[in-house]
Protein backbone atom coordinates (compact mmCIF):
# COMPACT_ATOMS: atom_id res chain seq x y z
CA UNK A 1 0.00 0.00 0.00
CA UNK A 2 1.32 3.42 -0.90
CA UNK A 3 2.03 5.96 1.79
CA UNK A 4 -0.91 7.98 3.05
CA UNK A 5 -1.02 11.65 2.12
CA UNK A 6 -1.68 14.42 4.62
CA UNK A 7 -3.61 17.63 4.21
CA UNK A 8 -2.15 20.99 5.21
CA UNK A 9 -4.19 20.84 8.43
CA UNK A 10 -2.68 17.54 9.64
CA UNK A 11 -0.73 19.12 12.51
CA UNK A 12 -3.79 21.10 13.59
CA UNK A 13 -5.90 17.93 13.65
CA UNK A 14 -3.37 16.29 15.97
CA UNK A 15 -3.22 19.38 18.15
CA UNK A 16 -7.02 19.30 18.42
CA UNK A 17 -6.84 15.69 19.60
CA UNK A 18 -8.22 14.05 16.46
CA UNK A 19 -8.17 10.31 15.94
CA UNK A 20 -6.72 9.88 12.44
CA UNK A 21 -7.73 7.12 10.03
CA UNK A 22 -6.89 6.28 6.41
CA UNK A 23 -9.53 7.62 3.99
CA UNK A 24 -9.24 7.83 0.21
CA UNK A 25 -5.45 7.71 0.43
CA UNK A 26 -5.23 10.42 3.11
CA UNK A 27 -4.78 10.41 6.87
CA UNK A 28 -7.96 12.14 7.96
CA UNK A 29 -9.63 12.94 11.30
CA UNK A 30 -12.49 10.52 12.00
CA UNK A 31 -13.38 12.23 15.27
CA UNK A 32 -12.14 14.76 17.79
CA UNK A 33 -12.41 14.46 21.60
CA UNK A 34 -16.06 15.61 21.47
CA UNK A 35 -16.99 12.30 19.78
CA UNK A 36 -19.13 11.50 16.75
CA UNK A 37 -22.54 11.98 18.37
CA UNK A 38 -21.79 15.36 19.98
CA UNK A 39 -19.96 16.59 16.89
CA UNK A 40 -23.02 15.77 14.80
CA UNK A 41 -25.40 17.53 17.17
CA UNK A 42 -23.09 20.51 17.53
CA UNK A 43 -22.98 21.01 13.76
CA UNK A 44 -26.79 21.02 13.63
CA UNK A 45 -27.11 23.37 16.65
CA UNK A 46 -24.22 25.78 15.93
CA UNK A 47 -21.44 25.23 13.42
CA UNK A 48 -18.90 22.61 12.44
CA UNK A 49 -15.59 22.98 10.61
CA UNK A 50 -14.52 20.14 8.30
CA UNK A 51 -11.21 19.65 6.52
CA UNK A 52 -12.16 18.48 3.03
CA UNK A 53 -8.80 19.33 1.47
CA UNK A 54 -8.48 15.76 0.23
CA UNK A 55 -11.17 16.49 -2.36
CA UNK A 56 -10.11 17.47 -5.85
CA UNK A 57 -10.34 21.06 -7.09
CA UNK A 58 -10.16 21.48 -10.85
CA UNK A 59 -10.40 24.46 -13.17
CA UNK A 60 -11.83 23.81 -16.63
CA UNK A 61 -11.14 26.60 -19.08
CA UNK A 62 -12.14 26.65 -22.74
CA UNK A 63 -9.25 27.40 -25.08
CA UNK A 64 -11.58 29.91 -26.76
CA UNK A 65 -11.77 31.79 -23.44
CA UNK A 66 -15.57 31.55 -23.53
CA UNK A 67 -17.12 29.84 -20.50
CA UNK A 68 -20.05 28.56 -22.59
CA UNK A 69 -17.58 26.50 -24.61
CA UNK A 70 -16.28 24.87 -21.42
CA UNK A 71 -19.88 24.23 -20.32
CA UNK A 72 -20.77 22.63 -23.65
CA UNK A 73 -17.59 20.53 -23.60
CA UNK A 74 -18.29 19.25 -20.08
CA UNK A 75 -21.88 18.47 -21.03
CA UNK A 76 -20.44 15.64 -23.15
CA UNK A 77 -19.47 13.88 -19.90
CA UNK A 78 -22.42 14.65 -17.60
CA UNK A 79 -26.22 14.41 -18.03
CA UNK A 80 -26.58 17.89 -16.54
CA UNK A 81 -27.37 21.21 -18.26
CA UNK A 82 -24.38 23.50 -17.76
CA UNK A 83 -24.96 26.04 -20.54
CA UNK A 84 -27.81 27.47 -18.45
CA UNK A 85 -25.62 27.65 -15.32
CA UNK A 86 -25.27 31.35 -14.63
CA UNK A 87 -22.11 33.09 -13.52
CA UNK A 88 -21.76 32.84 -9.74
CA UNK A 89 -23.87 29.69 -9.52
CA UNK A 90 -23.03 26.06 -8.80
CA UNK A 91 -24.77 22.84 -9.77
CA UNK A 92 -24.58 19.17 -8.75
CA UNK A 93 -23.49 16.78 -11.51
CA UNK A 94 -22.14 13.31 -12.13
CA UNK A 95 -19.75 11.78 -14.63
CA UNK A 96 -21.44 8.81 -16.29
CA UNK A 97 -19.99 5.82 -18.15
CA UNK A 98 -21.25 4.21 -21.35
CA UNK A 99 -23.46 1.84 -19.35
CA UNK A 100 -25.11 4.79 -17.61
CA UNK A 101 -23.30 4.13 -14.33
CA UNK A 102 -21.79 6.90 -12.21
CA UNK A 103 -18.01 7.41 -12.32
CA UNK A 104 -18.12 10.17 -9.69
CA UNK A 105 -20.39 12.92 -8.46
CA UNK A 106 -19.19 16.50 -8.38
CA UNK A 107 -20.00 20.17 -8.05
CA UNK A 108 -19.63 22.50 -11.06
CA UNK A 109 -19.49 26.26 -10.60
CA UNK A 110 -19.54 28.97 -13.27
CA UNK A 111 -16.90 31.51 -12.31
CA UNK A 112 -17.32 33.90 -15.22
CA UNK A 113 -14.56 32.86 -17.58
CA UNK A 114 -14.14 29.24 -16.47
CA UNK A 115 -15.78 26.36 -14.62
CA UNK A 116 -14.61 25.26 -11.17
CA UNK A 117 -15.13 21.60 -10.28
CA UNK A 118 -14.97 19.89 -6.89
CA UNK A 119 -14.67 16.09 -7.11
CA UNK A 120 -14.32 13.22 -4.65
CA UNK A 121 -10.89 12.44 -3.21
CA UNK A 122 -10.94 8.76 -4.12
CA UNK A 123 -11.88 9.53 -7.74
CA UNK A 124 -9.90 12.68 -8.44
CA UNK A 125 -7.00 11.18 -10.40
CA UNK A 126 -9.40 9.15 -12.55
CA UNK A 127 -11.67 12.18 -13.02
CA UNK A 128 -8.80 14.38 -14.15
CA UNK A 129 -7.57 11.68 -16.54
CA UNK A 130 -11.14 11.36 -17.85
CA UNK A 131 -11.39 15.13 -18.41
CA UNK A 132 -7.98 15.23 -20.13
CA UNK A 133 -8.78 12.24 -22.33
CA UNK A 134 -12.06 13.70 -23.53
CA UNK A 135 -11.82 17.49 -23.36
CA UNK A 136 -8.16 18.35 -24.04
CA UNK A 137 -8.84 19.46 -27.59
CA UNK A 138 -11.10 22.29 -26.53
CA UNK A 139 -10.25 22.88 -22.87
CA UNK A 140 -7.41 23.32 -20.45
CA UNK A 141 -7.74 21.18 -17.35
CA UNK A 142 -5.88 22.47 -14.32
CA UNK A 143 -5.79 20.58 -11.05
CA UNK A 144 -5.52 23.02 -8.16
CA UNK A 145 -3.00 21.57 -5.72
CA UNK A 146 -1.97 24.69 -3.82
CA UNK A 147 -5.30 25.33 -2.11
CA UNK A 148 -6.97 23.68 0.88
CA UNK A 149 -10.72 23.15 1.11
CA UNK A 150 -12.68 23.72 4.31
CA UNK A 151 -16.38 23.29 4.95
CA UNK A 152 -18.16 25.37 7.56
CA UNK A 153 -21.65 24.04 8.18
CA UNK A 154 -24.53 24.82 10.51
CA UNK A 155 -26.81 27.66 11.57
CA UNK A 156 -23.91 29.69 12.99
CA UNK A 157 -21.76 29.28 9.85
CA UNK A 158 -22.84 32.55 8.24
CA UNK A 159 -21.92 34.63 11.29
CA UNK A 160 -18.65 32.76 11.84
CA UNK A 161 -17.47 33.12 8.23
CA UNK A 162 -18.79 36.69 8.13
CA UNK A 163 -16.38 37.44 10.95
CA UNK A 164 -13.35 36.79 8.73
CA UNK A 165 -14.65 38.16 5.42
CA UNK A 166 -14.91 41.95 5.59
CA UNK A 167 -17.99 42.32 3.39
CA UNK A 168 -19.71 39.33 4.98
CA UNK A 169 -21.38 36.44 3.19
CA UNK A 170 -25.02 37.11 4.10
CA UNK A 171 -25.81 38.11 0.52
CA UNK A 172 -25.01 34.64 -0.81
CA UNK A 173 -27.75 32.08 -1.34
CA UNK A 174 -27.61 28.27 -1.52
CA UNK A 175 -25.36 27.23 -4.44
CA UNK A 176 -24.02 30.75 -5.02
CA UNK A 177 -20.25 31.01 -5.50
CA UNK A 178 -18.02 34.05 -5.03
CA UNK A 179 -14.37 35.03 -4.69
CA UNK A 180 -14.04 37.24 -1.62
CA UNK A 181 -10.98 39.01 -0.28
CA UNK A 182 -10.01 38.30 3.31
CA UNK A 183 -7.09 38.49 5.69
CA UNK A 184 -6.33 34.96 4.44
CA UNK A 185 -6.06 35.90 0.80
CA UNK A 186 -8.80 35.45 -1.77
CA UNK A 187 -11.32 32.85 -0.62
CA UNK A 188 -13.25 30.84 -3.22
CA UNK A 189 -16.53 30.42 -1.40
CA UNK A 190 -19.65 28.45 -2.26
CA UNK A 191 -22.77 28.44 -0.12
CA UNK A 192 -23.16 24.68 -0.08
CA UNK A 193 -21.95 21.61 1.71
CA UNK A 194 -22.83 18.02 2.43
CA UNK A 195 -24.62 18.04 5.77
CA UNK A 196 -28.12 19.30 4.94
CA UNK A 197 -27.24 22.48 6.85
CA UNK A 198 -26.82 25.97 5.58
CA UNK A 199 -23.11 26.55 5.23
CA UNK A 200 -20.10 27.13 3.06
CA UNK A 201 -17.23 25.41 1.33
CA UNK A 202 -14.14 27.56 1.30
CA UNK A 203 -11.11 27.09 -0.92
CA UNK A 204 -8.13 28.88 0.61
CA UNK A 205 -4.48 29.18 -0.43
CA UNK A 206 -2.52 26.41 1.31
CA UNK A 207 -0.31 28.93 3.12
CA UNK A 208 -3.34 30.54 4.79
CA UNK A 209 -5.38 27.39 5.49
CA UNK A 210 -4.28 26.72 9.04
CA UNK A 211 -4.62 30.38 10.05
CA UNK A 212 -8.13 30.51 8.57
CA UNK A 213 -9.10 27.28 10.35
CA UNK A 214 -7.77 28.65 13.64
CA UNK A 215 -9.61 31.94 13.14
CA UNK A 216 -12.89 30.08 12.53
CA UNK A 217 -12.31 27.73 15.48
CA UNK A 218 -11.67 30.75 17.72
CA UNK A 219 -15.39 31.42 17.42
CA UNK A 220 -17.11 29.69 20.35
CA UNK A 221 -19.86 28.43 18.05
CA UNK A 222 -17.43 26.46 15.86
CA UNK A 223 -16.16 22.95 16.66
CA UNK A 224 -13.99 20.76 14.42
CA UNK A 225 -15.93 17.81 13.00
CA UNK A 226 -14.50 14.50 11.78
CA UNK A 227 -15.45 12.01 9.09
CA UNK A 228 -17.62 10.02 11.51
CA UNK A 229 -20.11 12.83 12.03
CA UNK A 230 -19.73 13.95 8.41
CA UNK A 231 -21.15 10.54 7.44
CA UNK A 232 -24.15 10.63 9.81
CA UNK A 233 -24.86 14.26 8.84
CA UNK A 234 -24.90 13.53 5.10
CA UNK A 235 -26.96 10.39 5.60
CA UNK A 236 -29.63 12.25 7.60
CA UNK A 237 -29.65 14.75 4.74
CA UNK A 238 -30.28 11.89 2.28
CA UNK A 239 -27.05 12.61 0.37
CA UNK A 240 -25.14 9.88 -1.48
CA UNK A 241 -21.64 8.79 -0.57
CA UNK A 242 -19.78 7.84 -3.74
CA UNK A 243 -18.56 4.26 -3.52
CA UNK A 244 -21.40 3.31 -1.15
CA UNK A 245 -24.70 4.62 -2.46
CA UNK A 246 -23.65 5.34 -6.02
CA UNK A 247 -20.96 3.80 -8.20
CA UNK A 248 -20.28 2.55 -11.72
CA UNK A 249 -23.15 0.05 -11.44
CA UNK A 250 -25.86 2.55 -10.44
CA UNK A 251 -27.43 5.00 -12.87
CA UNK A 252 -28.48 8.50 -11.80
CA UNK A 253 -32.12 7.48 -12.31
CA UNK A 254 -31.80 4.38 -10.14
CA UNK A 255 -30.00 6.52 -7.57
CA UNK A 256 -33.01 8.88 -7.40
CA UNK A 257 -30.85 11.70 -8.75
CA UNK A 258 -33.11 12.42 -11.74
CA UNK A 259 -33.73 15.89 -10.28
CA UNK A 260 -30.15 16.71 -11.30
CA UNK A 261 -30.90 15.98 -14.97
CA UNK A 262 -32.46 19.15 -16.32
CA UNK A 263 -35.01 19.33 -19.13
CA UNK A 264 -32.45 20.48 -21.70
CA UNK A 265 -30.65 17.11 -21.50
CA UNK A 266 -33.79 14.95 -21.50
CA UNK A 267 -35.70 13.59 -24.51
CA UNK A 268 -37.15 16.54 -26.41
CA UNK A 269 -34.81 19.00 -24.67
CA UNK A 270 -32.62 21.57 -26.42
CA UNK A 271 -29.51 19.35 -25.99
CA UNK A 272 -31.08 15.97 -25.32
CA UNK A 273 -28.66 13.11 -24.67
CA UNK A 274 -25.08 13.47 -25.85
CA UNK A 275 -23.55 12.15 -22.61
CA UNK A 276 -22.14 8.67 -21.86
CA UNK A 277 -24.89 6.15 -21.16
CA UNK A 278 -27.59 8.46 -22.54
CA UNK A 279 -29.52 5.56 -24.12
CA UNK A 280 -30.05 3.81 -20.83
CA UNK A 281 -30.52 6.95 -18.72
CA UNK A 282 -33.09 8.50 -21.08
CA UNK A 283 -34.92 5.17 -21.31
CA UNK A 284 -35.05 4.91 -17.52
CA UNK A 285 -36.30 8.50 -17.28
CA UNK A 286 -39.11 7.63 -19.69
CA UNK A 287 -40.05 4.18 -18.45
CA UNK A 288 -38.84 4.18 -14.87
CA UNK A 289 -35.84 2.22 -13.55
CA UNK A 290 -35.97 -1.40 -12.40
CA UNK A 291 -34.70 -0.44 -8.95
CA UNK A 292 -34.51 2.73 -6.91
CA UNK A 293 -32.47 4.16 -4.08
CA UNK A 294 -34.80 4.76 -1.13
CA UNK A 295 -34.61 5.88 2.47
CA UNK A 296 -35.35 3.23 5.09
CA UNK A 297 -36.31 3.70 8.72
CA UNK A 298 -35.73 0.42 10.58
CA UNK A 299 -38.14 -0.29 13.43
CA UNK A 300 -36.54 -0.30 16.87
CA UNK A 301 -33.05 1.02 17.46
CA UNK A 302 -30.80 -1.49 15.69
CA UNK A 303 -28.97 0.16 12.76
CA UNK A 304 -29.08 -1.64 9.40
CA UNK A 305 -25.60 -1.02 8.08
CA UNK A 306 -24.18 -1.12 4.55
CA UNK A 307 -24.50 -4.53 2.82
CA UNK A 308 -27.48 -5.63 4.94
CA UNK A 309 -29.55 -7.86 2.61
CA UNK A 310 -33.11 -6.65 1.98
CA UNK A 311 -36.11 -8.96 1.53
CA UNK A 312 -39.68 -8.39 0.37
CA UNK A 313 -41.12 -10.64 3.06
CA UNK A 314 -40.52 -11.49 6.69
CA UNK A 315 -39.74 -15.08 5.74
CA UNK A 316 -38.45 -16.92 2.68
CA UNK A 317 -37.49 -15.61 -0.74
CA UNK A 318 -34.20 -14.38 -2.13
CA UNK A 319 -32.78 -10.93 -1.34
CA UNK A 320 -34.34 -8.16 -3.46
CA UNK A 321 -31.79 -5.49 -2.65
CA UNK A 322 -29.12 -4.26 -0.30
CA UNK A 323 -28.50 -1.42 2.15
CA UNK A 324 -25.77 0.91 0.85
CA UNK A 325 -25.42 3.19 3.90
CA UNK A 326 -26.78 2.75 7.38
CA UNK A 327 -26.16 4.34 10.74
CA UNK A 328 -27.79 5.83 13.77
CA UNK A 329 -29.10 9.34 13.15
CA UNK A 330 -28.32 11.48 16.18
CA UNK A 331 -30.74 14.26 15.16
CA UNK A 332 -33.59 11.94 14.21
CA UNK A 333 -32.78 9.84 17.27
CA UNK A 334 -33.07 6.53 15.49
CA UNK A 335 -31.53 4.26 12.89
CA UNK A 336 -31.61 5.21 9.20
CA UNK A 337 -30.47 3.51 6.03
CA UNK A 338 -30.42 4.01 2.29
CA UNK A 339 -30.47 1.16 -0.17
CA UNK A 340 -31.73 -0.12 -3.48
CA UNK A 341 -35.07 -1.94 -3.79
CA UNK A 342 -37.12 -3.04 -6.81
CA UNK A 343 -39.23 -0.14 -8.10
CA UNK A 344 -42.41 -2.02 -7.17
CA UNK A 345 -41.33 -1.98 -3.50
CA UNK A 346 -40.07 1.62 -3.48
CA UNK A 347 -43.32 3.36 -2.57
CA UNK A 348 -43.19 5.51 0.56
CA UNK A 349 -44.63 3.65 3.52
CA UNK A 350 -43.86 0.20 2.10
CA UNK A 351 -42.36 -2.32 4.50
CA UNK A 352 -39.14 -4.10 3.61
CA UNK A 353 -37.07 -6.49 5.72
CA UNK A 354 -33.38 -6.26 6.45
CA UNK A 355 -31.50 -9.28 7.74
CA UNK A 356 -29.50 -8.24 10.81
CA UNK A 357 -27.59 -10.97 12.69
CA UNK A 358 -29.76 -13.67 11.12
CA UNK A 359 -33.07 -11.99 11.95
CA UNK A 360 -35.31 -10.18 9.47
CA UNK A 361 -36.22 -6.81 10.91
CA UNK A 362 -38.87 -4.56 9.34
CA UNK A 363 -38.02 -1.15 7.92
CA UNK A 364 -40.29 1.45 6.35
CA UNK A 365 -39.53 3.09 3.00
CA UNK A 366 -39.20 6.78 3.85
CA UNK A 367 -38.89 10.02 1.88
CA UNK A 368 -35.41 11.55 1.82
CA UNK A 369 -33.99 13.56 3.46
CA UNK A 370 -34.64 11.97 6.86
CA UNK A 371 -34.29 15.42 8.38
CA UNK A 372 -35.44 18.54 6.49
CA UNK A 373 -32.48 20.46 5.12
CA UNK A 374 -31.97 24.08 6.11
CA UNK A 375 -30.32 25.50 2.99
CA UNK A 376 -30.63 29.27 2.53
CA UNK A 377 -32.66 29.45 -0.67
Amino acid at each position, binding site marked *: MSELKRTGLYDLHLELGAKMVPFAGYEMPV*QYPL*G*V*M*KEHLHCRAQAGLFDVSHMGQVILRAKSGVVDDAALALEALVPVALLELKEGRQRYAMFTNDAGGILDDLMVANRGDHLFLVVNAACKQADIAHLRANLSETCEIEEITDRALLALQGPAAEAALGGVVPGGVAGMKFMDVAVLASGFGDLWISRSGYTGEDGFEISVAAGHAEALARALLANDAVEPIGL*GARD*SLRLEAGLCLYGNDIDETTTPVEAALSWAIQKARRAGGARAGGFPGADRILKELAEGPARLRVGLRPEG*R*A*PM*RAHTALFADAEGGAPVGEVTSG*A*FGPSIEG*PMSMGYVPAALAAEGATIYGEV*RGKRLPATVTALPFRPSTYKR
Partner: protein
Amino acid sequence: MKYTEEHEWLRVEDDLVVVGITEHASTQLGDVVFVELPEPGATVSKDDEIVVIESVKAASDILAPVDGEIVEVNEALVDNPGLVNEDPLGDAWFFKMKVEDLSALDDFMDEEAYKAFIE
Protein backbone atom coordinates in the same frame (compact mmCIF):
# COMPACT_ATOMS: atom_id res chain seq x y z
CA MET B 1 -13.64 -6.35 40.67
CA LYS B 2 -12.25 -8.70 38.02
CA TYR B 3 -11.53 -8.02 34.35
CA THR B 4 -11.59 -10.18 31.21
CA GLU B 5 -9.44 -9.90 28.11
CA GLU B 6 -12.70 -9.01 26.32
CA HIS B 7 -12.76 -5.78 28.39
CA GLU B 8 -15.62 -6.82 30.64
CA TRP B 9 -15.67 -6.13 34.36
CA LEU B 10 -17.15 -8.68 36.78
CA ARG B 11 -18.40 -7.77 40.23
CA VAL B 12 -19.91 -10.17 42.79
CA GLU B 13 -23.06 -8.80 44.39
CA ASP B 14 -25.37 -10.96 46.57
CA ASP B 15 -23.74 -14.12 45.16
CA LEU B 16 -24.51 -13.01 41.61
CA VAL B 17 -21.93 -11.97 39.02
CA VAL B 18 -22.70 -8.51 37.63
CA VAL B 19 -21.16 -7.87 34.19
CA GLY B 20 -20.39 -4.64 32.38
CA ILE B 21 -17.72 -3.25 30.06
CA THR B 22 -14.71 -1.21 31.10
CA GLU B 23 -14.24 2.49 30.59
CA HIS B 24 -11.45 1.64 28.13
CA ALA B 25 -13.88 -0.46 26.08
CA SER B 26 -16.61 2.17 26.13
CA THR B 27 -14.15 4.81 24.93
CA GLN B 28 -12.89 2.55 22.14
CA LEU B 29 -16.44 1.76 21.02
CA GLY B 30 -17.51 5.40 20.82
CA ASP B 31 -21.08 6.54 21.35
CA VAL B 32 -23.27 3.50 21.94
CA VAL B 33 -26.61 3.70 20.11
CA PHE B 34 -28.13 0.22 20.49
CA VAL B 35 -28.02 -2.58 23.05
CA GLU B 36 -29.65 -5.99 22.71
CA LEU B 37 -29.79 -8.03 25.93
CA PRO B 38 -30.33 -11.76 26.54
CA GLU B 39 -33.56 -13.15 27.99
CA PRO B 40 -33.56 -13.51 31.77
CA GLY B 41 -33.58 -17.23 32.61
CA ALA B 42 -31.33 -18.13 29.67
CA THR B 43 -28.62 -20.69 30.36
CA VAL B 44 -25.36 -19.60 28.78
CA SER B 45 -21.92 -21.07 28.26
CA LYS B 46 -18.61 -19.26 28.52
CA ASP B 47 -17.85 -17.26 25.32
CA ASP B 48 -21.46 -17.35 24.05
CA GLU B 49 -22.25 -14.03 22.35
CA ILE B 50 -25.07 -12.85 24.55
CA VAL B 51 -25.19 -9.05 24.19
CA VAL B 52 -25.01 -6.98 21.00
CA ILE B 53 -23.71 -3.43 21.28
CA GLU B 54 -23.81 -1.06 18.33
CA SER B 55 -21.90 2.18 18.49
CA VAL B 56 -21.75 4.97 15.94
CA LYS B 57 -18.81 3.04 14.48
CA ALA B 58 -19.68 -0.66 14.48
CA ALA B 59 -21.41 -3.62 16.07
CA SER B 60 -19.71 -5.73 18.72
CA ASP B 61 -20.64 -8.54 21.09
CA ILE B 62 -20.29 -9.16 24.77
CA LEU B 63 -19.42 -12.76 25.60
CA ALA B 64 -20.61 -14.73 28.61
CA PRO B 65 -17.51 -14.66 30.86
CA VAL B 66 -18.36 -18.00 32.53
CA ASP B 67 -21.05 -20.72 32.39
CA GLY B 68 -24.25 -19.83 34.24
CA GLU B 69 -27.79 -18.54 34.12
CA ILE B 70 -28.87 -15.00 33.31
CA VAL B 71 -31.09 -13.86 36.16
CA GLU B 72 -31.48 -10.15 35.47
CA VAL B 73 -30.75 -7.73 32.61
CA ASN B 74 -30.47 -3.95 32.68
CA GLU B 75 -33.47 -2.83 30.61
CA ALA B 76 -32.48 0.82 31.13
CA LEU B 77 -29.76 0.32 28.50
CA VAL B 78 -32.31 -0.56 25.81
CA ASP B 79 -33.99 2.84 26.15
CA ASN B 80 -30.82 4.75 26.90
CA PRO B 81 -27.78 3.07 25.30
CA GLY B 82 -25.72 6.22 25.92
CA LEU B 83 -25.50 5.17 29.57
CA VAL B 84 -22.73 2.77 28.48
CA ASN B 85 -20.57 5.81 27.71
CA GLU B 86 -21.73 7.91 30.65
CA ASP B 87 -21.32 5.39 33.46
CA PRO B 88 -19.77 2.15 32.18
CA LEU B 89 -18.62 0.99 35.61
CA GLY B 90 -21.83 1.85 37.45
CA ASP B 91 -25.36 2.27 36.09
CA ALA B 92 -24.48 0.65 32.76
CA TRP B 93 -24.15 -2.95 33.96
CA PHE B 94 -25.51 -5.36 31.35
CA PHE B 95 -26.65 -8.51 33.15
CA LYS B 96 -26.45 -10.48 36.38
CA MET B 97 -25.55 -14.19 36.28
CA LYS B 98 -25.97 -17.06 38.71
CA VAL B 99 -22.88 -19.28 38.54
CA GLU B 100 -22.21 -22.66 40.13
CA ASP B 101 -18.86 -21.81 41.53
CA LEU B 102 -17.71 -18.25 42.13
CA SER B 103 -14.12 -19.45 42.23
CA ALA B 104 -14.35 -19.50 38.40
CA LEU B 105 -13.70 -15.77 38.65
CA ASP B 106 -10.30 -16.28 40.24
CA ASP B 107 -8.71 -16.82 36.82
CA PHE B 108 -9.55 -13.31 35.62
CA MET B 109 -7.33 -10.24 35.91
CA ASP B 110 -7.40 -7.88 38.85
CA GLU B 111 -7.36 -4.13 38.26
CA GLU B 112 -3.58 -3.88 38.19
CA ALA B 113 -3.24 -6.70 35.69
CA TYR B 114 -5.98 -5.22 33.50
CA LYS B 115 -4.32 -1.82 33.49
CA ALA B 116 -1.12 -3.48 32.32
CA PHE B 117 -3.10 -5.45 29.72
CA ILE B 118 -4.56 -2.37 28.03
CA GLU B 119 -1.28 -0.47 27.95
